């Protein structure tokens, strides 16, 4: 069978898959006795109907850009990194330590320093599974899942026994010093004389996320390393034959992947909470899988998918507030998006390919 045209492969298939996932989600909402159309209206109003909603939608989208990019860089190397959650947890720890123990003179320096610390911690957390995969052949999917659990236990230990201020019952660090507080988008808008998104967590990290998208695009399609990563991901024997070291690519791809997941902490830990709390990541690492699959592992696709999931996340929160539909609806939608765009890809692709072949025959 002839392959699909490129635009159909990159845009049409994921679009149809996502629509299918949403159709099934609507059925799920019907099944629990709610009206999907009303639910959608509540979600749109809550997430996009005001600058307040947008402030949250953009904040969540920023998280998902980082974790989505993390999954896609590993995916280009043929590695399935499910450990974004744990790597983001460790990134939070790195950012917290940098913010608490280094006297930063200005937020911009703190952003660079703490971001580097977060990326470093995230990358370190991805390093062991990468080495085990490359050297011992232990399956990266299972080791990264295990590292998620170990990261949760480690963070719990650090917050309860080490970083918790004396006298506090709350398992969290003390608040970061004011010099490390990042400007929020609403403050920046106010600087321009605009009243936009007051009391929302979207912050300057959004621009870091956009920058990360550009850099990942440059890395994957415009550098030698990116070429090696893609070659290795397409065919390991061919890459080996071309003199590309599997160990080096596995380790480097996972370090970049873990670093991106860890970098997410500048948004949720430094930008929003301004201290490290338990469950700071809130499943963003896992949503990264759906975002990467839906975005076809392309930074532009990842950014768009992250925006969609940001909308779903904020809209889902509004739903839980105003209707009887719990937040877990988002987990179901996320699962369906992963299923249809990732695993049931051929279900859409096969009939589409047939359709295009038919069309071509008629044209000829």
């Amino acid at each position, binding site marked *: 069978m002839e392959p699909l045209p490129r635009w159909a492969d990159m845009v049409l298939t994921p679009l149809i898959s996502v629509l299918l996932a949403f159709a099934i989600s609507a059925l*799920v909402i019907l099944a*629990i*006795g709610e009206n999907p159309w009303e639910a959608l209206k509540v979600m749109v109003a809550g997430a996009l109907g005001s600058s307040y909603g947008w402030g949250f939608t953009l904040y969540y989208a920023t998280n998902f850009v980082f974790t989505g990019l993390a999954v896609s860089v590993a995916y280009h190397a043929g590695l*399935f990194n*499910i450990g974004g959650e744990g790597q983001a947890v460790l990134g939070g720890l790195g950012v917290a330590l940098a913010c608490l123990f280094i006297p930063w003179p200005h937020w911009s320096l703190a952003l660079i320093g703490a971001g580097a610390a977060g990326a470093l911690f995230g990358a370190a957390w991805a390093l*062991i599974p990468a080495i*085990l995969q490359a050297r*011992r*052949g*232990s*399956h990266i*999917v*299972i*080791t990264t*899942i*295990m*590292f998620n*659990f*170990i990261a949760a*236990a*480690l963070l*719990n*230990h650090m917050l*309860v*026994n080490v970083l918790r201020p004396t006298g506090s019952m709350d398992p969290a660090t003390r608040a970061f010093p004011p010099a490390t507080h990042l400007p929020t988008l609403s403050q920046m808008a106010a600087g321009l004389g605009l009243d936009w998104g007051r009391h929302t967590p979207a912050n300057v990290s959004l621009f870091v996320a956009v920058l990360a998208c550009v850099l990942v695009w440059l890395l994957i399609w415009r550098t030698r390393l990116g070429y090696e990563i893609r070659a290795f991901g397409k065919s390991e024997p061919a890459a080996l034959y071309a003199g590309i070291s599997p160990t080096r690519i596995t380790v480097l791809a996972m370090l970049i992947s873990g670093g991106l997941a860890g970098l997410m902490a500048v948004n949720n830990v430094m930008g929003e909470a301004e201290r490290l709390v338990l469950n700071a990541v809130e499943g963003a690492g*896992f949503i990264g*899988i759906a975002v990467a*699959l839906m975005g076809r592992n392309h930074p532009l696709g990842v950014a768009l998918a992250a925006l969609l999931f940001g909308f779903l996340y904020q809209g889902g929160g509004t739903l839980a507030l105003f209707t*009887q*539909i*719990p937040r*877990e*609806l*988002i*987990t*179901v*939608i*996320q*699962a*369906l998006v*992963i*299923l249809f765009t*990732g*695993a*049931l*890809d*051929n*279900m859409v692709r*096969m009939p589409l390919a047939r359709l295009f072949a038919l069309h071509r025959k008629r044209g000829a």
Partner: protein
Amino acid sequence: MDFGTVLQIMDSALRLMTPLLLACLAGLWSERAGVFDIGLEGKMLMAAFTAASVAAVTGNAWLGLAAGIAGSLAMSVVHGVASITFRGNQLISGVAINFLASGLTVLLGQRIFQLGGRTPSLTGEARFHAIHLPFAQELRGVPVVGPVYAELVSGHTILVYVAVLCVPLTWWVLYRTRFGLRLRAVGENPASVDTAGVSVQRLRYAAVMICGVLCGLAGTYLATALSAGFVREMTAGRGYIALAALIFAKWRPWHALLATFLFGLMEAVANRFPSIEIGPLTVPSMFVNALPYILTVIILAGFVGRATPPRAGGEPYVKER
């Protein structure tokens, strides 16, 4: 530590081993036929939910068991369609199933029972209760053998015995029947099975369905025997640990029994001694809780011998490539 304490820990290890063993055997069936299954966790979770819900509504543990198996099978059908019929990525399909179960159980649970995702506590006939084997009390006086029989062998729910019996059963079917031979061949070299005129797809579906039944048993055990009801995320990573045990066992049934018992034992010890003191050092409880996961990584690193998975594992079969 006296003999009584050791017996108690072993007893508890046996209970904690059961869901791991069932899930591990489930994974063994699926992966021996060449279908990777990361979704054991989700299937168990779904089974735990459907079993606890039906048991709570009907007050009958056996109906709960049937519902548990049905819930898990529904997830198996999704996995089969995605990874066998549409030749999708088996890992991604498994991940999707885990999230689907995680979300759906809470969504439906909240809708039906309004208890924040839990089911009501199960009592009486809605739960599986311990079976006391004959002569357990009479033989208690016999030294060593008596207490072992009374404490360790007797006094478990029927599902524990079923789980242990599944080990020889799995071994016999896989290694002594024609079906088992073909199933293993499908996991190693599907083209040869196809050449012999046997349907690869049908065999793989059979394996995935058997996997679903076993996960159904595991989930039902969690919700109606080990605990008294469903709580959100109650599988707590057991599906992944079962996968690690499967690799540790090198995809062999008897070794699976040993591997899962080891994990059960570790969990039992961690429950009994929340923090371990070695000389002046106190190992924090978080570390003890993370121990099964750390051990899994060490096992996966192959420090206990190299494991070779079924050769065609994870690859969809395309006729006439």
